[in-house]
């Protein structure tokens, strides 16, 4: 250690900070520029559909039962072949999630027997009042590529029976 070392160290510190000025800022300019979320990110819920447009949700209310924050409200109704929403016997006529209560734990996802409810990647949830924090079924439901796939669909009698809800596979991740 030489006499001038303390002075050199001070100047070296200045050099380090000056060098950092030349580096690219790490800032993400948020509203214009958004970062990809991680694959297992838990954001706002989405109600999924099958390829033919029928809803996966069969109105069983298991998600509501699993929800620790009691944020989910489900009311079920019977499907008919004239007005078919889901392949099962019943469908959710009302499906509401209160996003203020929700803690994004993902238990609803785990509880769902048909993989109908999935936590998506939307994290931009802010509200001006409590009422608008309640997401109804049409806000949560996945959109369809083709308008004739919208539910309710009119189907041939006998196509859907008690066993037409597909078996669930093991979860992917």
């Amino acid at each position, binding site marked *: 250690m030489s*006499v*001038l070392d*303390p*002075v050199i160290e*001070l100047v070296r*510190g*200045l050099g*380090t*900070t*000056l060098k*950092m*000025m030349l*580096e*690219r*800022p*790490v*800032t993400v*300019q948020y509203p214009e520029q958004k970062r990809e979320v991680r694959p297992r990110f838990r954001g706002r819920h989405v109600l999924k559909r099958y390829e033919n447009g029928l809803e996966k949700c069969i109105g069983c209310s298991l998600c509501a039962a699993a929800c620790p924050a009691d944020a989910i409200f489900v009311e079920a109704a019977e499907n008919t072949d004239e007005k078919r929403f889901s392949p099962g016997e019943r469908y959710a006529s009302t499906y509401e999630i209160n996003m203020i209560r929700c803690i994004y734990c993902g238990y609803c996802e785990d509880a769902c027997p048909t993989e109908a409810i999935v936590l998506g990647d939307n994290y931009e949830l802010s509200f001006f009042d409590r009422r608008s924090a309640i997401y109804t079924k049409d806000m949560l439901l996945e959109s369809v590529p083709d308008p004739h796939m919208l539910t309710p669909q009119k189907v041939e009698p006998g196509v859907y029976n008690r066993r037409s809800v597909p078996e669930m596979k093991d979860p992917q991740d």
Partner: protein
Amino acid sequence: MLSDWTLWLEWFIKAVVLILALLTGFAYLTWYERRALARIQTRIGPNRAGPQGLLQPIADAVKLIFKEELVPAKADKILFFWAPVITMVPSIIIAAVIPFGPTVELFGRKISLSMANINVGVLYVMSIASIAVYGIVLAGWSSNNKYAMLGGLRSSAQMISYELSLGLGFVVAILLGNSMNLHEIVEKQRDIWFALVQPVGAFIFLIVTLAEVNRAPFDMPEAEQELTAGYHSEYSGMKFALFFMAEYQKMIVICMIAATLFFGGYREFWFLKDTFFSVDRNWWLGPIYMLAKVIVLLFFMIWIRATWPRIRYDRLMAFGWKVLLPLSLAIVFITAAGILLAQELNNPMLIWTIPVVSIMVGLFTVVMIYRELRRKAYERA
């Protein structure tokens, strides 16, 4: 003479321009500091309000004006009200003697580009600089808050201690300029800046200015981590804004003074003396050079804030009294001796003994500090 209304008009215009320049300067210094600090920390900094965030100071000002102003129940109401004013006023009026350019002929009259071209300008600056501490200590005391009180006390002790070295820095410039008039000091730097004749003096001056305006690494009076905010803990709204303004204006003004005394003030680089860029040819370059020098000096202040940690209070005092004061006394002595030598032997080149001897003394000081630190480390071990 004083009944001449054009003279009054001239003063009025110069005063308005100076105050407006300082107030906008303050506003944009906050923007400049935030942007520069952000870049050093690889961030972007405020860039939302207006292009490049240039309207950010205006947004901040509007916010501060509409904020609620609280007065603590047991505060001394009168002093609590006046303390920000007492802090604010010196930070503006100190700029009155700083020259921004040579004397110019405009509209058939000679106008000197400073508010007041007085022959004891340096003395004026020193006295006003010392008044600023009153506002701070009164603010600390009148808030009736122990943190504010401690901040005020620290600030006054620090400013008084460092004012000695600051004064000796002024003396160096007075000796080299052979005048107390700031215009003449600047004109003396036509051939060479005083920062080159007396580098150690200029260096000490720059260190001391950091302490005088309570900037990092000497920002103990406002240490957020230990004193919440120091003397202005209890202030909010516009009263707080006044302290904030005073602080940043003091930064600007002290940089102007440093530029004037050691870095040629409004004058160009000495080697541009007879070119188009000389202030003698184009007087309007004067304020521009001044602005450029202030911006560079301010960048150093921001850069140091981004780099060095705050030093401990007892070390700050020890540094001020045991290192800077003796060193600046020695520097004054060397400067005076060098000038005398050059005069007596009639050889202007002998003036260059000043920087040589000063740097040697500076190095000696570094060695002594080093030995002292080693001895302390040895005793601890």
